[in-house]
């Protein structure tokens, strides 16, 4: 609850993406994947980044974590994590940022776990790779466990010694390898329990192939949380899962939101998932953010013609109505349309649309839209 109330009081930005342009160099030419993305993630919120395939959701996420493929080039822009420009970091600094500040969880959990190392080792690797950072946490997990064991019992000399030792460890003090290993396991188990994996001690020893899709996704989320990130990017994390398992994971995310001190960017193509879970949402189309608003506002009062079309095109599980579709299909970003990239499909397009790229403007408090119909 403490986290929640703080989030409500200080809604400052954790992440600001400013005018981000990314090109992919291919044999066929330059694919202009991101065309000036503007995005702000506030502290403690879950932001939904929603759009159809190829709109640049994942490229945005990969740019933030610095994992763009070799043929991608950041043409311009800034990605500010608490004011620090991630695009200016060296490789090593970026690696450390990924270890401790930003974490990403991908769609297909089978691909992102190491198949020949057990789950426990994969988590403890994270917990021990930056020792100074995690020493505090390791020790506090150890102390918690110690207190649990000794509760109400008279202390034997051995236990007393262990307690003294644990209390004496400071962030900079040296620890024996065995001790680190034991404490890291304790801490890893607590993360596995946090993501509600049944029988955490057994899962700790299991290999990825022994887990079901839902359990693997939980294990990956545990690994992401183990880094105590300020920002968690979740890229289509429920897309590969069945509905009942998707419901389990969404429920888990809801519960975690109260527990962890991180902002979450939930990337998805599914507006229903956004409606269910997010505080705010940003709609992307062909490399641009076209609309940003609080989720309730966005669904009740969509402004951009694309958002309107998208909302009318989704089949609803709670009622049966004629679906309206958006004519045409997503443009080829090798040759993106001029001006507003949505104008060839837009039922409201007028003479200026092919000429002017609309900026993202705030039309009412917190509701931004990039469309010439609303000025700009």
């Amino acid at each position, binding site marked *: 609850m403490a986290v929640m109330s703080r989030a409500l009081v200080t809604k400052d930005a954790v992440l600001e993406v400013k005018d981000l342009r990314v090109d992919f160099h291919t044999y066929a030419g330059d694919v202009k994947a991101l065309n000036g993305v503007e995005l702000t993630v506030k502290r403690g919120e879950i932001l939904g980044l929603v759009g*159809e*395939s190829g709109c640049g959701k994942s490229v945005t996420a990969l740019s933030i974590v610095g994992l763009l493929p070799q043929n991608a080039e950041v043409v311009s822009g800034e990605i500010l994590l608490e004011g620090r420009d991630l695009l200016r970091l060296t490789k090593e600094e970026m690696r450390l940022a990924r270890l401790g500040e930003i974490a990403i969880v991908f769609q297909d959990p089978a691909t992102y776990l190491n198949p020949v190392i057990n789950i426990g080792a994969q988590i403890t690797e994270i917990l021990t790779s930056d020792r100074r950072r995690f020493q505090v946490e390791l020790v506090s997990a150890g102390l918690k466990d110690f207190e649990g064991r000794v509760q109400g019992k008279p202390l034997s000399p051995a236990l007393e010694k262990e307690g003294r030792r644990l209390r004496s460890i400071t962030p900079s003090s040296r620890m024996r390898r065995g001790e680190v290993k034991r404490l890291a396991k304790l801490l890893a188990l607590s993360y596995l329990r946090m993501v509600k994996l049944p029988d955490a001690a057994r899962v700790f020893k299991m290999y990825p192939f022994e887990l*079901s*899709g*839902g*359990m693997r996704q939980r294990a990956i989320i545990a690994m992401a949380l183990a880094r105590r990130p300020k920002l968690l990017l979740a890229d289509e994390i429920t897309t590969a899962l*069945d*509905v*009942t*398992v*998707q*419901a*389990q994971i*969404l*429920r888990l995310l809801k519960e975690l939101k109260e527990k962890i001190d991180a902002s979450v960017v939930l990337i998805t*193509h*599914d*507006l*229903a*998932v*956004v*409606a*269910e*879970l997010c505080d705010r949402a940003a709609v992307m189309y062909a490399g641009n953010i076209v609309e940003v608003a609080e*989720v*309730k506002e966005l*669904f*009740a009062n969509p402004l951009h013609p694309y958002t309107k*079309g*998208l*909302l*009318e*095109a*989704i*089949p*609803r*599980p*709670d*009622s*049966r*109505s*004629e*679906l*309206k*579709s*958006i004519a045409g*299909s*997503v443009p080829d970003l090798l040759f993106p349309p001029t001006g507003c990239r949505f104008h060839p499909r837009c039922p409201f397009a007028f003479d200026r649309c092919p000429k002017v790229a609309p900026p993202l403007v705030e039309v009412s408090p917190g509701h931004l839209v990039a469309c010439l119909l609303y000025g700009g």
Partner: protein
Amino acid sequence: MKGRDGDLLTVQDLHKWFPIKGGLLGKTVGQLRAVDGVSLSVMKGETLGVVGESGCGKTTLAKTILKLIKPTKGKIIFDGSDVTDLSGRKAMRLRRRMQIVFQDPYASLDPRQTVRSCLTEVMGVHGLVTSRRESEEAAENLIEKVGLNPDHLLRFPHEFSGGQRQRIAVARALVTNPDFLVLDEPTSSLDVSVQAQILNLLKSLQREFGLTYLFISHNLAVIRQVSHRTAVMYLGRMVEIAETEKIYSEPKHPYTSALVSAVPIPDPSRRTELAALEGDVPSPVNIPPGCRFNTRCPYATEKCRRETPPLVEIAPSHWIECHYDIDFPSMKRSDLERGLISGGERAPE
């Protein structure tokens, strides 16, 4: 379920088991029971939705019905005659009347074949046309029916988007002028805005040609849009079949009710606690004894772990496969076990 008048397709106690070979000698060491006793019927002109999670046997069911694979046991009755063991020329004639659209239009179209030859090839195989001109006219006609234009006929699949490809796949299925179409996840690989286009196209084609659909999907929202009746499948069996509105408004089987309430609703003002079933679907190689849903059912009793429930009609054309006929969400397992609501338990048929 018996065949009735007005049924185009009736499936009775259909089984498809795949043997699992193992050991040095390649002996059969087990059976994967993909479809394990399915009975259903599809009326002329209706859409029967089949919904279930991955691995529940939806696609195997479709393939078995179309006789693309041979059933292990059971009967398939199409338009009044038993077609289970048809082969050769008779099977070919049947194929003209039953066609399929697959999930992935990137895989189901030959990349080295133009759209025209993709369509005219089918006409040739079935001997539907006598001259080249006739086949080309038919192809032009069809491509317009699915919302593309004749210029597209000379192109190759890679020149089309996913939605357009799926239109081509639909056109190919319509070449033989079938009565019955199996749509196996036809929109799952498409984006929402395009998905709506394809769903609307399928609806209008159904009206125009009087088609009967078996619509397979894992997406409950899609099923609700398109189907008149819905069958819910779990581990190779139908657990509930009813009119679509009934399935969503008063689901009777605990699996259906869990499935329906697990779907997020695209309306932030109506956030509810998503009902999450515990655990995962058991493997179809080791199907639990008794009711196959008992390992995940929050209401499972001793009886459920022992006896397989029969498929019974609890209201006109509303079938469920469950020992109990009660309003599950408001009940607790302990009530069932204590026999407080024993009135809900049915006598075995």
